[in-house]
């Protein structure tokens, strides 16, 4: 068994958010940041077909890591390994090891429910519950045993503010969430996810169904959220990855081809395949 070498970031590399404005919110060194998720040799099979091939990658704390690659290459599948959502699918088999915060999340004594409370997720298609805006946020909090009261209301407000939605909905907290626009619904889903204070936020193409203005709002929000959360985002939009991420991983046909500081991936990729993809030659 030959193990593929782990792709890690050169210690000297600086993760700098691109953008001419200079008001880039962060300029932390990628190497300064602690490793939060450590995946080694992860393979995943849907029944007989292999969707992920020995993927090793380190995800760093309080940075935005983007997964890019052509459709069907396994980005979502890999993302869903971090909160074990793949467990819900029949006949899925995972090999290798994923450690989060030092704990092997696939080990027998890990409680998936507790894991998911710490690793939040935002889906491609916004999926607010058919309840009121307030109840959408309160849902996760109640799961944590929080009762009705000022504390609950405080956290709901705090979360909605955190998702830059408060001003738009504060007057109709008790009307149905389904009455919101697509972009608002997605921000509501983000608010719902951060309400229970996860450590990691997984986002699977959160803006792919939105118009440019709503997309811009989400991107802005992500840059804000990374101050408090470690964010892993799947996107098929390379400009988006370039705008918001510190690190970028390029996947192709179930393999991790290249993983590096975002600026490097987009300006000076190390692999031919990566270059072809980011320059739009395929995908």
């Amino acid at each position, binding site marked *: 068994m030959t193990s593929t070498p782990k792709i890690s970031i050169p210690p000297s590399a600086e993760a700098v958010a691109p953008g001419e404005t200079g008001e880039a919110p962060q300029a932390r060194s990628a190497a300064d940041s602690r490793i939060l998720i450590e995946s080694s040799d992860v393979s995943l099979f849907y029944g007989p077909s292999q969707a992920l091939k020995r993927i090793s990658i380190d995800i760093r704390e309080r940075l935005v890591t983007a997964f890019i690659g052509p459709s069907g290459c396994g980005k979502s599948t890999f993302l869903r390994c971090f909160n074990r959502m793949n467990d819900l699918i029949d006949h899925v088999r995972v090999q290798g090891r994923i450690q*989060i*915060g*030092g*704990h092997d*999340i696939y*080990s*027998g*004594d*890990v*409680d*998936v429910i*507790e*894991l998911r409370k*710490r690793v939040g997720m935002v889906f491609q298609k916004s999926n607010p519950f058919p309840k009121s805006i307030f109840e959408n946020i309160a849902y996760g*909090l109640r799961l*944590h045993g*929080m009762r009705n009261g000022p*504390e609950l209301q405080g*956290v709901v407000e*705090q979360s909605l*503010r*955190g998702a830059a939605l408060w001003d738009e909905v504060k007057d109709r907290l008790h009307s149905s969430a389904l009455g919101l626009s697509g972009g608002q619904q997605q921000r509501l889903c983000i608010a719902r996810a951060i309400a*229970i*204070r996860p*450590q990691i936020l997984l986002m699977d193409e959160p803006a792919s169904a939105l118009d440019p203005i709503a997309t811009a709002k989400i991107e802005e929000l992500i840059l*804000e*959220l990374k*101050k*408090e959360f470690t964010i892993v985002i799947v996107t098929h939009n390379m400009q988006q990855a370039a705008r918001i991420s510190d690190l970028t991983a390029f996947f192709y046909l179930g393999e991790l081809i290249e993983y590096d500081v975002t600026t490097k991936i987009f300006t000076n990729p190390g692999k031919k395949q990566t270059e072809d993809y980011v320059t739009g030659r395929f995908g």
Partner: protein
Amino acid sequence: MTSGTTHPLENADPWAGIRRGQQRRPVEWLVERAIHAISLSAIVGVFLIFIFVAREALPIVLGRATSASATQVIPLEGLDTRSPAEIQKYLGLTPEQFAALDRDAKVDLMNLKLETAKGASKDRDAAVNTLEWRYLLLPYQWSGYDKPEMIWQPVSSIHKYNIIPLLIGTLKATIVALLFAVPLSLAAAIYVSQLSSPRLKEWLKPGIELLAGIPSVVLGFFGLLIMASFLQEVFGYESRLNAFVAGIALGFAIIPVTFSIAEDALTSVPGSYVHGALALGSTRWQAAWRIVLPAAIPGVFAAVVLGFGRAVGETMVVLMASGNASIVSASLFDSTRTITATIAAELAETVFGEHHYRMLFLLGALLFGVTFLSNLVAESFIHRLKKQLEGKA
């Protein structure tokens, strides 16, 4: 962002606690077990139905029940020709008692037995166990009849249980019902699924399915009080209630079944089939008839088979509209008696555990078997349809 504000769920070591193990939710675990157990109730239900209907009928099936009011007699010579064990059992003695008796005493007992048997019934059929399979299925020349006949006559001095008249009655009513309902509902299914506008379909489909909402006792009432006289006037036959009237009323009961299944089957044929045909210049009707119907044919079969099962098992309609005479005849215009009507009409008068009671349960088990089988067949047809369409789509 409200960073700085403390959050009530904030934790010093956020990852502490994820390794608490999986099995720590006993309530959840228990409830899930309970859900699983309860969900098996459907299986248990079917199983129990089969067991408890078959159980009551079992003695007849195994030949352990007897309806003979007089036992078989052994003539006096039997004392020498039969084995001692047989004679002992016939006289109802224990081996010790039998050994203690001398020959004269045995002859006396044999004679006594003969006398009582004669007294019990003058009818030579009194000794016949009418529950044996040959009496249930084959013609027999009963005393007083001039030729072998198949007779269902459970309440008489000789209990005659030939089920052939009931089978014929059931078949007659069922065939009329199918001949009436299948073409009608199939044609309607073609119209609703292929030819009508989607808007019209939204009304037609529930409209026709409303027929299923009419209780069968109301259809029976309608057949008995309104249709019977009307049809008699039109066709001019003799007995007002007969297989024909019952069959038509039964048809009303199965139209919604055959319609629904056939409509579903026709609708499940992919639109691409139709578009292809239309592109080649055929009319909607030609596409429906030549392309869609053949593609959906297993579903149509399923509809017919399920309609058959429903017709065979329907009770109140036939109980009220068929006339209930168990006559063996080929005419659809004779009064007729079906299996279901027989059970419904006679069970209340039977005594628990007695042979008439068991006989009716045997009929019930037969019904259960027939409908179970037709269900399985229909299911396999539908399965085949799905596979075919998947294979081609």
